[in-house]
């Protein structure tokens, strides 16, 4: 029988778990634990595609066609090591899967020539997936032992980058959907809520609200219709955890949604996904169609009496859509503007019915908890923060990508042990956790553990998991200005403190980082007045905003002023940007020994700030310099530097 029939009759509906050798053998083939012909895996998640994986894929296809090799090519999701992409893995029958990094289209041929002849190439080798079933490649490191992977604890990202996201058979062969059916047939929805409660799972979108409690509230509400909404409206700049899960392992999310819907009593589930996540949308729609084919959606699923339909709603895009009530408004065809709570969505939400809204990562943890039991989950992590968290480490770290670690891991370990420290041997300055709603954490606080309470006590937030690492060349004032620009752009406009307050803070920071050619006494006074108002303004915005966007808007500013006050004061009083980022505050200086008097810079200076005779060293008049940097670009003798 074909794969579908086999899986439905022997695996999904079987009363006794599959232990028969024939079945386990076939399942092993579906998982590609055992292969009869070579398999090439190309990391084709969005981050891979941007790095050129689409060309790598074409090169691989061309290669096996030209050499007439009978091989399978699978496009997998992101394993997390984005800075090493494009990634290509090769699995030959009987040998362990070997992984190659930085595989541009131009090197595909030489790598495959080597590996198909049993030779390990000299370059581009990342590691191999060691397993007792396969013969290893000599001299190739176990990929799990690489510093990037060694300290991770992968529950949500377990299959990403390894399994085929477009085949439900692969997922079922790994135990997928059997947990869902176990819940339908053996547990009441009340019991499922209890299990999640016991596991200690908390909302991974940033709020950290106990998931079991939210489910139980909706479960206990009396209504003819309930909804489950998956919040995939990830729009934090620098956060792409949810995208990786949806692209790389959509069935994991769908199973989590199905179990959650059952626990809450929702017969309809919505996945609210950002419009620009094209690949995620495609893989998700494909996965849902496959679920339908296998009878896992619809009415009376596997004769359990439970109904479920899953719809994907494509969000036209707004950061504020991540807020629960705004999200609900958007699905209903309105502007995404938050509404006051209570009523809480769990009681009165979408179309005024009890609605549970959970983040993608929260839901992706659910199958594991129901499969292995709540203790397996709550034995990981700290006293109040159980389980793992996925972080997107970006910025100036040596390795950029996604990591999943147990709660309680220190920031120092995350940045220096796992992500390899700062690239180009620069100095660490700060790390921004939680995106534009988060805070910057300086070097002295690197021993902070990532868990909800520790971060809150330190004045930071977990956020959705975005971590931007900054080095000595980053200007903290400029970063705060960047975040405020983002926030005031994304503010829905409903309440004054957020709408006007974020704009006002942005204006004040613009004043601080700019230097108008001539400033009157009045303008200087305005600048100082603005600065003195900053802290008070931050407090008002935080205390009086309607929703999370406004309430957390002052965080970047407050934390930067706390830890990097001297940088602010340099900008304000000395009118200097030590990182050289705020262009208008730069003052250029000509080194007398190096200047040959070629008059190139003199000619190009837009404000005629450079004086000098031909063949004599030139001089820049500080008051006239606007810091544009044209002289710096034009000088062939490297005689111009920033003061």
């Amino acid at each position: 029988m074909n794969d579908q029939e086999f899986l439905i009759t022997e695996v999904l509906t079987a009363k006794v778990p599959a232990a028969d050798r024939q079945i386990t053998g076939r399942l092993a083939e579906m998982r590609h634990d055992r292969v009869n012909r070579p398999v090439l895996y190309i990391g084709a998640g969005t981050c891979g595609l941007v790095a050129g994986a689409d060309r790598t894929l074409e090169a691989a296809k061309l290669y096996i066609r030209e050499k007439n090799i009978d091989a399978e090519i699978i496009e997998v999701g992101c394993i997390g090591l984005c800075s090493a992409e494009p990634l290509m893995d090769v699995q030959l029958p009987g040998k362990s899967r070997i992984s190659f990094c930085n595989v541009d289209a131009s090197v595909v041929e030489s790598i495959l020539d080597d590996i198909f002849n049993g030779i390990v190439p000299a370059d581009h080798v990342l590691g191999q997936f060691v397993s007792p079933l396969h013969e290893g490649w000599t001299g190739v490191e176990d990929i799990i032992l690489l510093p990037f992977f060694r300290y991770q604890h992968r529950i949500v990202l377990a299959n990403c980058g390894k399994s085929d996201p477009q085949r439900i058979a692969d997922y079922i062969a790994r135990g997928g959907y059997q947990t869902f059916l176990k819940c339908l047939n053996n547990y009441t929805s009340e019991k499922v809520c209890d299990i999640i409660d016991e596991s200690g799972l908390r909302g991974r979108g940033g709020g950290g609200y106990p998931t079991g409690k939210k489910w139980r509230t909706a479960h206990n509400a009396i209504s003819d219709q309930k909804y489950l909404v998956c919040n995939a409206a990830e729009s934090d700049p620098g956060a792409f955890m949810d995208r990786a899960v949806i692209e790389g392992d959509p069935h994991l999310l769908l199973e989590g949604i199905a179990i959650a819907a059952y626990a809450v009593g929702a017969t309809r589930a919505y996945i609210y996904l950002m419009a620009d996540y094209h690949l995620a949308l495609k893989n998700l729609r494909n996965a849902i169609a496959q679920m339908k084919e296998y009878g896992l959606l619809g009415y009376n699923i596997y004769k359990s009496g439970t109904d479920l339909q899953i719809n994907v709603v494509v969000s036209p895009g707004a950061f504020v859509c991540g807020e629960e009530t705004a999200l609900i408004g958007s699905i209903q065809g309105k502007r995404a503007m938050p509404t006051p709570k209570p009523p809480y969505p769990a009681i009165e939400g979408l179309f005024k019915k009890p609605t549970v809204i959970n983040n993608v990562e929260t839901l992706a943890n659910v199958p594991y908890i129901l499969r292995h039991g709540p203790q397996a989950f709550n034995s990981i992590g700290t006293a109040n923060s159980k389980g793992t968290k996925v972080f997107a480490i970006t910025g100036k770290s040596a390795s950029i990508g996604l990591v999943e670690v147990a709660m309680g891991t220190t920031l120092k370990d995350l940045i220096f042990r796992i992500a390899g420290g700062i690239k180009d041997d620069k100095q660490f300055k700060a790390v921004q956790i939680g995106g534009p709603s988060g805070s910057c954490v300086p070097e002295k606080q690197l021993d902070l553990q990532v868990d909800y309470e520790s971060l809150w006590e330190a004045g930071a937030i977990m956020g959705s998991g975005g971590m931007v690492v900054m080095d000595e060349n980053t200007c903290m004032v400029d970063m705060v200005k960047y975040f405020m620009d983002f926030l005031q752009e994304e503010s829905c406009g409903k309440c004054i403190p957020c709408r006007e307050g974020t704009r006002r803070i942005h204006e004040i920071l613009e004043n601080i980082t700019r230097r108008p050619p001539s400033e009157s006494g009045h303008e200087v006074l305005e600048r100082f007045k603005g600065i003195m108002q900053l802290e008070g303004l931050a407090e008002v915005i935080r205390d009086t905003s309607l929703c999370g966007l406004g309430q957390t808007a002052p965080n970047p500013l407050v934390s930067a002023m706390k830890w990097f006050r001297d940088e602010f004061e340099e900008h304000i009083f000395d009118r200097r940007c030590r990182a050289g980022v705020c262009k208008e505050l730069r003052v250029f200086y000509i080194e007398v020994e190096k200047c040959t008097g070629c008059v190139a810079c003199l000619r190009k200076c837009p404000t005629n700030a450079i004086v000098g005779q031909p063949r004599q060293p030139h001089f820049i008049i500080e008051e006239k310099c606007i810091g544009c940097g044209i002289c710096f670009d034009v000088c062939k003798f490297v005689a111009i530097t920033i003061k």
Partner: protein
Amino acid sequence: MPVSIEDICSKYKQGSREALLSVLQEIQDNFGYLSEEAIIYVGRHLKLPSSKVYGIATFYDQFRFAPKGRYHLQVCSGTTCHIEGSMALLREIDKLLKIKDGQVSRDGLFSLQVVNCMGACSAAPVIAVNGEFHTLMSSADLAGLFDEIRKNA
């Protein structure tokens, strides 16, 4: 265009508010942007004032109100791209093509859109031209890229 605005709207129930965003998305997928005519028509079909439709459409990031150029540039405004110099790229684009965010060049060849984080942070700063990514771009590379495009245009 093979499909018309009327064809698209007729797929959605008249007066159904929930369909608003889907209708607008489908129109934009087909035409590349939302014209004034489209907004008025959608308003009539869904029994909403066109000012309301316009207000909702302009609230969201996805919707455009002017056609794209032949080569549509998207510059990522994510945090890592910002740190790696996306602002310098935007200044350079303004200098070379005389366009800012949301504008089309005089010759209709180029249009610019500053987009939210694409999540390709390891390749920062990121620019896409008609969906094709150009990564690790510096301002100096841009002039070369645009010349190349002009030659093949």
